[in-house]
């Protein structure tokens, strides 16, 4: 179904990838932890190595929970699929983590 309108109703999306340049939005969810009301939203470079993304962005957020133990982080998923992050050296883009992707982990 399309919007009913008096004229051609076509407008650009407010959060399209080009608005973020070399960066993108990524959502990260700590599965099963009710301490956080929801997943977190990050703006990260597409070319950031995964381990660096986790250390510099995700862990400071996850540490809002005083029981967070970075060594316990495991079982990364990209949407519903298991994500093999290897040694953390691959970039988000290499791993197929594109604009507005949802990542989840257990800890």
């Amino acid at each position, binding site marked *: *179904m*399309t*919007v*009913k*309108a*008096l004229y051609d*109703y*076509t*407008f*650009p*999306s*407010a*959060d*399209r*990838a080009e*608005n*973020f340049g070399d960066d993108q*939005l990524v*959502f990260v*969810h700590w*599965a*099963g932890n*009710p*301490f*956080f*009301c*929801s*997943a*977190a*939203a*990050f*703006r990260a470079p597409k070319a950031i190595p995964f381990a660096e993304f986790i250390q510099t962005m995700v862990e*400071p*957020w996850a*540490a*809002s*929970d*005083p029981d967070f133990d970075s060594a316990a982080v495991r079982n990364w998923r990209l*949407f519903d699929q298991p994500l093999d992050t290897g040694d953390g050296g691959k970039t988000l883009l290499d791993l197929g983590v*594109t*604009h*507005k*992707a*949802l990542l989840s982990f257990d800890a």
Partner: protein
Amino acid sequence: MTTVQPRAKKLPLKERYSLLTRDLDWEPSYVSRERLYPYTSYEGIKIHDWDGWTDPFRLTVDAYYKYQAEKDKRLYAVLDSFAQSQGHLSLSDASYLNAIKIFIQGVTPLEYAAHRHFAFLARYLEGPAPRFAALCQSVDELRHAQTQIHTISNYNKYYGGFHSWSKMHDRVWYLSVPKSLFDDAMTAGPFEFLISISFSFEYLLTNLLFVPFMSGASFNGDLPTMTFGFSAQSDESRHMTLGLEAIKFLLEQDEDNVPIIQDWIDKWFWRAYRMSALVAGMMDYMLPKPVMSWREAFELYFEDQMLGGLFPDLDFYGIKPPRHVDLAIGEKDHLGHQVYKILHNFSFAAAFTTSTPTDEHMAWLSEQYPSTFDRHYRPTWEKHRRIEAAGGRAFFQGLPQLCQVCQVPMAFTEPSDPTRISFRHSEYRGETFHTCSDGCKWIFDREPEKYVQAWLPVHQIYQGNCGGPTVPDVLNWYGIKEGDNGEYRGSADNTSWLEWHK
């Protein structure tokens, strides 16, 4: 018992009403009807006879202003007396006012938006009776905005968070929830607006949206807000009537209207219900003297009165209860808790404060939510208590994922499993869009062209459109000042309160 004198001959109400409304209308001759009323056919709604619209209140301008002036006189007398007697000191606690901060920031601007759009309808609806009803509602809504501002201005003298409600409505993350709802309605056609606001908001959900604030006021010593509520409610009964008349008129005009109306009911029930989540959090957690639980209010005002009362009436026209209503019913034991968790996690960035519930309040929550509170929510609140007992206060050190449609942080859980966040997403023009529920996803997929334009606060912050990259930059851009935000205990409001009650 007094004997009643025979009264002087007067024109009967029906006739006066007709002479002063319908009979003032005329068929245009200098321009075509289509040019005079350009908005009433593009939605696909068919109207054959605009005279089929009845206004049971049969209000004329003179009666309107007479009664409204009387209501204002009564209200302002109470506001004056409360201010003069330093009535704010007899509130249950300063923390109560956090609910009223949300009200002036979130609801008052919607009254103003409604005023504007009903003025638009007062010009562009084709029948004189609905135009006049819309004109009265437009003036009513302006009255509500003004009286709310006056009512709540007294608190602005003594407490934080009230000072920049209008600017905050346009900028602050949690306020985009109500703002986007009205923007969605105002950018729809006139008939969709009537179903979204007059019907879904002002009839179907009005008691759920409104009565909790007013009862909360009554229970917590907030005489001015309570009095405002009663003063506005008598206007609301006319608004409810307009909503009900609108839907029946449209359904009776042409059978082809039925599926269009059903779709709008489905969309707008869910849209307004998701917005009412803020009320759920308020009712369950933000009233020092609680009135009733969200669960109880939802059962009474929606399940009993609407599903049990109204929808059987609409069944005659082939209208069914709203799509996804079962999801709303399934959430009633969870909604308040999940929403307050959002507010508690993020009040460092809000123009109100929050705190972890006390033992006493948790006992009330256990009692009100026997199947969910102790199992799913108490453990986290107790963890917060332990952190605070050690001198800390935990907030969400980051930004949340928002739903593209309702714009609430995605804190809602799967209907089948309250330990799992409910994630949905859609693709449109190669881009991913997240939604919080089947309800919001259905709405997105139906009109993606609209929702991809949404001004999502978190994404706008990340695009650099909200004052700067740091939290202080953003709070400054929001207009949030020292003392407005964070934890209630130890806040400026709390400190003042204790000082004034030594």
